[in-house]
């Protein structure tokens, strides 16, 4: 069990700056994020898109903003738990016991939810019966590619993940590549390679088709795909892979007894605390009268929530407001030598 002054859920810009604020006032914290990288929506949805409304930064991309925020955390030693999703939050005396899907357990007086629109999860196939085969014959990510050797694999999607796996698996498997339109959005060299492999018979290409149904008896046997013009085709297949990107889902947060309205959590504007003492919500996921879904608002909300955490983490100490320009203790925390 990991004991910490505050646990931050979500490593997007708001979560990162909130961590900075906590460390600055002398509290320790850890971060959990379901993505495999730091940066949240900035990295997953728009790494290359320019942002123009970060104070004092005329223009930067989502990736640059993330890198700068991570740099700002460099003086501090903060543990990130990536690829983990918080599943359970339970009150134990004065603390919250927080469990992730990987079995990590935290004990903390403060939980700060900086979860954006929720955790990123793979988009799944629409036919209901696909659930039955999930993680057995239908996958949305690949952990062990050796299982596909000598088998027929049907890959759906038109981006780099779908194309890369189609190319990779075509050397040892019989590969069907199915996409809902004729254009692919992968890198040109990757797309060219796919067409070459199609010509040499290594990849069977089906464009303007989507998955309509799956068939099997405990074990997946075949799939039905439908053309734009409604024509149906049945393909025998051992495995199906879907690469449709990620979606955001509120997920388990909905079960923690918080006031949730339209996928956002109601908070006060003094501490950004929810209806549960010691649980705060900051950034896009929180709502209050006048809330703006801007990154700069998340920074403000995180700064205030961090101060509120102090009270519960250090009940016998008094929080003193200090400026980074003049405080010796803050400079010590930042590792800056003062004269």
């Amino acid at each position, binding site marked *: 069990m990991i004991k910490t002054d505050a646990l931050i859920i979500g490593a997007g810009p708001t979560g990162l700056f909130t961590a900075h604020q906590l460390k600055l006032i002398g509290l320790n914290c850890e971060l959990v994020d379901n993505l495999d990288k730091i940066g949240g*929506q900035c990295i997953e*949805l*728009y790494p290359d*898109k320019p942002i123009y409304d970060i104070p004092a930064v005329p223009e930067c991309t989502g990736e640059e903003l993330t890198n700068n925020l991570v740099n700002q955390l460099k003086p501090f030693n903060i543990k990130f738990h990536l690829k983990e999703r918080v599943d359970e939050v339970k009150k134990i005396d004065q603390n919250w016991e927080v469990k992730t899907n990987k079995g990590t357990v935290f004990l903390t007086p403060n939980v700060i939810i900086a979860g954006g*629109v929720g955790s990123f999860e793979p*988009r799944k196939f*629409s036919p209901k019966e696909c659930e039955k085969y999930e993680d057995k014959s239908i996958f949305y990510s690949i952990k062990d590619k050796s299982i596909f050797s000598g088998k027929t694999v049907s890959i759906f*999607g*038109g*981006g780099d993940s779908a194309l890369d796996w189609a190319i990779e698996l075509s050397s040892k498997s019989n590969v069907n590549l199915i*996409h*809902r*339109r004729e*254009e692919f*959005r992968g890198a040109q060299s990757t797309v060219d390679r796919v067409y070459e492999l199609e010509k040499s018979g290594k990849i069977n290409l089906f464009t303007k088709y*989507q998955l309509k149904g799956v068939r099997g008896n405990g074990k997946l046997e075949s799939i039905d795909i439908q053309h*734009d013009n409604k024509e149906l085709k049945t393909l025998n297949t051992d495995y199906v892979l879907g690469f*449709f*990107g990620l*979606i*955001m*889902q509120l997920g388990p947060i909905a079960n923690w007894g918080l006031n949730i309205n339209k*996928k956002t959590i109601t908070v006060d504007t003094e501490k950004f605390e929810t209806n549960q003492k010691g649980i705060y919500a900051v950034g896009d996921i929180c709502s209050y009268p006048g809330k703006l*879904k801007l990154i700069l608002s998340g920074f403000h909300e995180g700064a205030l929530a961090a101060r509120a955490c102090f009270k519960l983490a250090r009940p016998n100490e008094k929080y003193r407001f200090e400026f980074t320009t003049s405080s010796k203790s803050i400079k010590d925390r930042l590792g800056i030598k003062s004269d």
Partner: protein
Amino acid sequence: MSKVTYIEHNGKSHTIDVQNGLTVMEGAIQNNVPGIDADCGGSMACATCHVYVKEEWFNKIPKKEDGEEDMLDMAFEPNKFSRLSCQIIVNEELDGLIVQLPSKQA
């Protein structure tokens, strides 16, 4: 103001006066029309404001920009009348526009 009709997957219809210049997505969100999530807030970075434009209206709407079609690859059950409603700006010429909503956004 122009009238936009949103038809939910279950057939329930909502006709809304949407201010010209707003997007079809904003018209839905501001008037609590269920079925459009718009998780990314209109930056064409998700596909949760996906609609099917009624056939007779489809060609009257300005064509998709680069990127919208890529994003529609991620939508739930897209078809040839699929659009992202955050990319359709309401104007007088679209008065009477009808869009149908998918059974879910994700």
